[in-house]
C-alpha cells in the first residue's frame, strides 16, 4: 500500500504543478458543493427547519452586514457588535415600557411609548402594536448616535495614534463588556419580553409552521437589505464606502473623505445593529448573554461571505442560519438505521457551536470567504 500511495501523492503533486488554478479552487469548489448540497437537502427533507433557518439567518444577516462593513472599512474585528445588538434591543424595551427593572427594585418613568393611544393594540396577527415600531425607531436613533460618539471619543484617537488592529479589537471587547454590564445594571439578568405571552404558529403548505412575527422579521430584513443595497450601490457615499473598503490608500488619494466614510459606516452599522437587535429580541427574548452568543454566528456569516462584502454576508448568514437549525433537527437514517445516532440531532446547547464549525471550515479552506477575491 505504501508505494502506491506515494505514487499517488507524486501524481497529485505533478497535477498540482501543471494546473495550479484547478487545485487552488478545489477546496473552494468542495466547500460550495458541500453548502449547496446541504441547503438543497435541507430544503427537500426538512422544509420547516429550512424556513425557520432563513428567519434566523435573516436576523444574523443584518448584524453581519454591519459587521462586514466595519471590518472592511476600518479593518478590525468589532467584538462589541453582538452586545450592541442586545443593548439596542433593551433600549427599545425601555422606550416601549419606560421601565428599568432589576432585582427587587423597579423604576418606572411616568411616560413611555406604550401609553400612546392604541400603541399596544396588536397589528393584525402580529404580537405587538405600533408602539414597538416606534420603539425600534428610537433605539435606532440612539444606537446610531452611540456608534458615532464612540468613534469620536475612542476609535478616532486610536486611528490617530496608528494603533494596530489588535488594539482596536481589544478596545471593542472592552466596550462589549461595558455594554453588557449596562444592560445587567439597568434591566437585570432575567429574560424580558416586549409582549409577554405565547402566540400560535400558523400552518402553511409543506409542513411549514411560522408565527406572524417571523414573517414580519423576514419582511423587515428584506426591506432593510434593499435599502442598504441602494445606499451602497446607488449613492455617492455608498460608492465611496466600497472604494475605501477595497483600497483605503487609493480611496484617500482619489479625494475621498475617509473620515466621513468612517462616520457613515458607523452610522449604517449602528442602524443595522438596532434593527437586528430588536428583531432578535422579538424572535427569541431579551437576554443579556445573548449578545455574546450571537457573536460567533455573526463572524461566521461575515467571514463566510468574505470580509467587506455585504452580499456575501447576506448569503453567509443564510447558510449559517439554515445549518444551525437543520443540524439541531436532522436525523440521518438510511434504510431505517440511524447513522451517527450519538451525534445527530445535536443537543440544543450546541446551537451556536455549529456556526463555529462552519467558521473553522472556511478559515481552513478559504480564509478570504466564498465571495472574497483577495486574501
Amino acid at each position, binding site marked *: 500500500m505504501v508505494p502506491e500511495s506515494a505514487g499517488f501523492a507524486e501524481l497529485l503533486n505533478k497535477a498540482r504543478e501543471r494546473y495550479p488554478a484547478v487545485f487552488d479552487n478545489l477546496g473552494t469548489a468542495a466547500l460550495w458543493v458541500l453548502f449547496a448540497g446541504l441547503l438543497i437537502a435541507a430544503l427537500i427533507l426538512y422544509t420547516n427547519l429550512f424556513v425557520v433557518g432563513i428567519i434566523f439567518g435573516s436576523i444574523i444577516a443584518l448584524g453581519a452586514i454591519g459587521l462586514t462593513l466595519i471590518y472592511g472599512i476600518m*479593518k*478590525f*474585528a468589532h*467584538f462589541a457588535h453582538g452586545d450592541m445588538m442586545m443593548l439596542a434591543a433593551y433600549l427599545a424595551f425601555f422606550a416601549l415600557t419606560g421601565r428599568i427593572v*432589576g*432585582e*427587587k*427594585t423597579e423604576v418606572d418613568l411616568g411616560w413611555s411609548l406604550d401609553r400612546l393611544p392604541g400603541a399596544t393594540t396588536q397589528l393584525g396577527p402580529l404580537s405587538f402594536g405600533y408602539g414597538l415600531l416606534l420603539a425600534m425607531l428610537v433605539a435606532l436613533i440612539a444606537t446610531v448616535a452611540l456608534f458615532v460618539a464612540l468613534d469620536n471619543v*475612542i476609535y478616532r*484617537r*486610536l486611528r490617530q*495614534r*496608528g*494603533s*494596530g*488592529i*489588535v*488594539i482596536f*479589537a*481589544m*478596545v471593542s*471587547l*472592552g*466596550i*462589549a*463588556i*461595558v*455594554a*453588557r*454590564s*449596562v444592560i*445587567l*445594571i439597568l434591566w437585570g439578568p432575567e429574560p424580558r419580553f416586549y409582549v409577554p405571552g405565547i402566540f400560535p404558529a400558523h400552518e402553511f403548505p409543506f409542513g411549514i409552521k411560522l408565527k406572524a412575527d417571523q414573517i414580519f422579521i423576514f419582511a423587515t430584513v428584506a426591506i432593510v437589505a434593499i435599502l442598504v443595497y441602494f445606499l451602497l450601490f446607488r449613492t455617492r457615499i455608498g460608492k465611496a464606502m466600497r472604494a475605501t473598503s477595497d483600497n483605503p490608500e487609493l480611496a484617500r488619494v482619489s479625494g475621498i473623505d475617509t473620515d466621513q466614510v468612517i462616520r457613515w459606516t458607523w452610522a449604517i452599522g449602528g442602524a443595522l445593529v438596532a434593527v437586528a437587535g430588536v428583531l432578535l429580541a422579538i424572535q427569541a427574548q431579551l437576554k443579556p448573554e445573548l449578545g*455574546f*452568543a450571537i*457573536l*460567533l454566528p455573526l*463572524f461566521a456569516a461575515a*467571514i463566510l461571505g468574505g470580509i467587506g462584502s455585504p452580499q456575501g454576508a447576506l448569503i453567509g448568514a443564510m447558510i449559517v442560519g439554515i445549518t444551525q437549525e437543520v443540524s439541531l433537527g436532522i436525523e440521518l437514517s438510511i434504510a431505517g438505521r440511524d447513522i451517527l445516532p450519538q451525534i445527530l440531532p445535536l*443537543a440544543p*446547547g*450546541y446551537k*451556536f*457551536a455549529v*456556526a*463555529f*464549525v462552519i*467558521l*473553522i471550515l472556511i*478559515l*481552513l479552506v478559504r*480564509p*478570504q470567504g466564498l465571495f472574497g477575491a*483577495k*486574501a
Partner: protein
Amino acid sequence: MKADKFITPAAWALVTVAIVTLPATRSQDLGGVISFLTGFAILVAIFAILALGLNVQWGYTGIFNFGVVAFFMVGAYAAAIITKGPATTEYVRYVGGFGDKLDFIPFLDSEQWLPFLFGTAGAAIVSGALAFVLSIPTLRLREDYLAIATIGIAELLRRIAIEEKGLVNSDRGLIGIPSPLEDLVNPPEYKFIFFGVAVALVILILIALEAGSRSPWGRVLKAIREDETTAAAAGKDIFNFKMQSFVVGAMIMGVGGAAYAYYSRSVSPDAFTHFFGTFLIWAMLIVGGSGNNKGAILGAYIVWGFYSITGLMRAYFADWGLEFLELRMSFLRDFVVGALIVIVLLLRPAGLLPEERRVSLFMQRESKQPTPPGEPESGPTGSRADASPDREKGSGGVAS
C-alpha cells in the same frame, strides 16, 4: 511625566490599604481577617499563573488568544478527574477518577502529594495538547481571525462539558476534589499551606519564564511579535516558534486551572464563563503591562484586588441604605473591568509596569562601555516608556 511614575505605587497602595482595612473595620476577629486575606492572596496567585501564561502568548509573541478560558477549564477538569477517586453513585458520571491508584509510593504520605503531581502535570499536558491541535488550523491565520477562532473553541468546549453527559458530569460539575497536603494540618489552617504551594508555583513559573525570555528563544518570540516578516527573513520558522509559545502559554494556563480546581474543590461549567476565564485575565495583563512578567502578577493583584474590594463594599452599601448599588455591585464591577480595558489602552497602553527592554548578556556587557552621546541608554532595566507599545502589524494579510 511625574504623575506617570506615581501611578503604579498609588494603584498598588490603594488596593493594599483597601483590602486590609475593609475587612478589618467590619470584623473584630483577627483570625477571620487573616483567613480572608490568605484566600484573597491564593486567588491572586492562581490568576497570576493564568496571566503569566497569557503573557507568554500575547506579551512575548503577540498571539491574540481570546480563548484563555478553554485552557483554564481543560486544566481544571483534567486535574479534577485525575486526582478524584472513581464515582461512588450512579448520579455522578465522569471519566477518569484515578486518585486512589496514584499513591503507589508506600511511604512519605504519598497520597498527600503524589496524585497532585500527576494531576498538575496532566493538566499541563492536556492543555498543551489542546493548544498543539488548535495551533495547526489557527496560528497561520491573521491575528483577529485567531481571536474569533479561539472564542469559538472556548464556547465549543464549554458546550461539550455541559452537553456530553458522562464526560465531566455535565452542568452539575465535579465536587469534592481533593487538595494537596490537606491532612497535614487542621482544616482552618490549611489555607496557609495552600498559599505556600500556590506562591511556590508562581515563583517557579516566574523563574522559568524570566530565564526563557532572556534566552535566544525568548528573543525570537519578541522578534516575531514586532515584525514577522523580518523574523522570517532572518531564517526563523515563524509557525514553529509561535506554536511553541502557544503551547507553553497553554500549559501554564492548565497549571493555573489545576490550582484553581484544588483550591475551590469543585469545578462546574458555570464558573468558566468568557468573562471570568478570559476577559478578566486579559484585563489583568493589560492593566499590569503586557510583555512584563512582573506586570502580569501586579495586574492580577490589582484587578482581583479591585474585584474583592467591590465585593466587600456590598455590605457597606447595604448599611448605608443604597440598595440599588448593593444589588448591582457585581454588574458594576464588570462595567469597571470593561471600562478599565478601554481606558488603559487609550491612556496608558503599556500598562502599569511597561515591558522592560531586554538585551542579551553579550549586549549587556557591551552596554557597560560608555555609550556614545546621543544614543539612548540601553540596559536591562531601562523602561520603555517612550516606545510605542502598540503592535504595528495591522496591515498583515493571512500569513502563510
